[in-house]
């Protein structure tokens, strides 16, 4: 069963009451937050899933979930952390869906080719292949390891990263070092060479 289908069930079974929609207010403030964070959330999801359109679909789902949260955090900092965390969860679930993962190489290749802004088509294909490998390795890591690497790679500071993942800032360095070591071991195991 794919994550999509599983979620379909969740949705089918859970959304019946309308209770969630009754707790979502105020709308104006939420839309301001939406505009403030949308680009960042999409950018993070592009890191994770590699496909721009899919990243935007997932981002829409992230904001929708935030909107439907009955106890939605209102302070922008807390909401930002929540958005990042939910985006990571959805993105990594998506990445782990094996059928979809198999399509990434093909899709990424098409995207690079279509973008035409990154050198020759061969450059694009090589980049797509490297991206697919890196994402496959991330999908095989423990969730916290992939989270730490993706957030850091997206440019979050240790403080921001700790906030998103609910860690002490002083433990970020340790987790990052461990995740990096694991990434290299796993890459070598899966592809027989270092990146």
């Amino acid at each position, binding site marked *: 069963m794919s994550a999509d289908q599983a979620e379909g069930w969740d949705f089918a079974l859970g959304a019946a009451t309308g209770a969630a929609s009754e707790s979502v207010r105020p709308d104006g403030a939420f839309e301001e937050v939406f505009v403030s964070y949308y680009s960042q959330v999409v950018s993070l999801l592009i890191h994770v899933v590699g496909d721009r359109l899919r990243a*935007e679909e997932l981002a829409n789902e992230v904001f929708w979930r935030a909107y439907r949260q009955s106890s939605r955090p209102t302070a922008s900092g807390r909401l930002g952390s929540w958005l990042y965390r939910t985006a990571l969860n959805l993105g990594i679930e998506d990445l782990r869906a094996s059928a979809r993962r198999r399509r990434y190489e093909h899709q990424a290749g098409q995207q690079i080719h279509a973008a035409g802004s990154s050198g020759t088509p061969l450059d694009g294909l090589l980049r797509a292949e490297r991206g697919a490998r890196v994402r496959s390795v991330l999908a095989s890591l423990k969730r916290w390891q992939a989270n730490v690497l993706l957030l850091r790679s997206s440019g979050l500071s240790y403080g921001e990263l700790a906030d998103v993942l609910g860690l002490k800032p002083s433990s970020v360095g340790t987790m990052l070092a461990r995740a990096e070591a694991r990434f*290299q071991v796993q890459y070598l195991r899966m592809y027989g060479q270092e990146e």
Partner: protein
Amino acid sequence: MACLSDGMLRAQIDGELSEKRQLELGEHFASCADCRRRAEGIARSAERVARALTVLAPLAGESSPDARAAIARFRTRRAAVQGDTRSVARILLGRPAWMTLAAASLIVGVLAFTPARSFAQRLVAMLRVQKITAVPLDFEALDNPGDRARLGKSIAQLISEEVVVTVKPGEPQQVMNGADASQAAGFQVRLLGNRADAPQLKVFGEQAFHMTVDRDRLQSLLEEGGRSDLQLPYSLDGATIAAQIPKVVLAEYGSCRHRGHDALPAEVVGGLPCIQLVQAPSPTVTVPPELDLAEIAEFGLQLGGMSAEAARGFSRTVDWASTLVLGIPQGSSYRTVEVDGAQGTLIERAGRGEKTPARYWLVWTRGGLIYSLRGWGDPTDALTLAESLN
């Protein structure tokens, strides 16, 4: 000073240590060859991984995400949920954007054109529901999901422009007991006899809408969405389709807390598992008599991932004027059961770990009413519960 931890050495590379810590580290480095060697190893590892992950960043030439377009989509979705979608099908079938979907389904028999992922509850076609059947669909076989997403958005837009809502449901009414619910709903409401706890009861208002189909516009959207292999029946063009959705009663038992779209299992929220019982008279859909429902349904099944041959075969086995057809996703199973003196469909999904127990969904019709019972746990519970309806 004790030797430096890997975490400190790693933070130092990123300039994330306080000034004081940085000074201490420098002093310690001067006298600790082992720490210097470890720091070099950690730096090499960090550099390699950072280089590998640069490939994940968007390309330099890519445009920024369009937040305005996204918020427009968000508003459309919100409006659908807050307004018209307090409908029978949202309650029965659980999809907030159901009305949009239902309208489209009725028009083109579409199953899988949306980026939405809740196929279990997807409606194929409905006129006046007298029985319910299920069909397994292989959505993995669908084409590029990007195309599907674009197609879904386009059709949703089309429908939002052309559907005319004639009766709005208003706010749901909370009632105290079954007698009040029966009075508010206009039909005899039944409750679970084997539950000692009182349910939370809500009555959702009646609603109605209609639209006239522009076949060529829909066909062009299909082609833009990458499904030029499918041709909409010409009989659809100019057809006016109207739907009238009666009042719906929802009874919730147990600890029904929701997170986002999801009703949470008792393993997460505690208390008794949430059970949702929904009952309503069948919606009524009016279509022109010359409309070939089987042909439209066949088209919808193909769009849902079924082969042309299989769609034709299935379509011929169904009386589309009286049957509600549910698409069942892979990973869920279903069976026909005897329930409440009638034939029902029991859809099941196995549990996935401690926090996600098995789920069930039992749907049946009796005496002109549609019943839906959903919950967590052993699917046979659904039958026991249904048999206790008073």
